[in-house]
């Protein structure tokens, strides 16, 4: 089962790294941000699986913080990248 989890985690990581091409390519800031959001969710999935594979329940807490972070980053982006001024 641990080997299976390992393969899944590697697959997810490869998927993340491929998605990063979008951050590099853009063209719009929103495209870059979306790719970062995908990285965040996939990282949460990786942590969920690692917490079982490495038998470290504490990783679930790290996953909670990762999940919170994605929201902070996206809200920060939307507020700070918008042009409309209130």
């Amino acid at each position, binding site marked *: *089962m641990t080997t*299976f*989890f390992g393969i*899944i985690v590697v*697959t*997810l990581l490869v*998927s*993340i790294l*491929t*998605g990063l*091409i*979008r951050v590099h390519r853009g063209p*719009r800031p*929103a*495209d870059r*941000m*979306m*790719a970062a*959001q*995908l990285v965040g*969710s*996939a990282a*949460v*999935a990786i942590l*969920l*699986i690692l*917490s*079982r594979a490495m038998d470290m*329940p504490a990783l*679930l*807490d790290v*996953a*909670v913080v990762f*999940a*919170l972070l*994605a*929201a902070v980053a*996206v*809200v920060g982006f*939307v507020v700070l*990248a*918008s*042009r*409309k001024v209130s």
Partner: protein
Amino acid sequence: MMLDLIAASLVVFGTVFFIAGTVGLLRFPDIYCRLHALTKADGLGLALVALGMTLKAESFGEVFRIVLIWFFVALASATCGHLIAAYARQADREGKA
């Protein structure tokens, strides 16, 4: 054993959705299509992986935290999807004006 099999297939399906999301993010032509791909991957992929991991969890506390993580990511990704879409549409409008 049966439980292991179900958990494993759920996790595999979740991973497939993440891969699909990445492919969509890279291949779709404009920002709204990409957003569609992204939210599907986020929502379904993570939900399936989380469901699979709850089957393998060892204590009630772990199940609770996994469900909390899933709930939060679902909520955040829906809100963020909306915010990004609204931002992109507004930028488009101003670009045309």
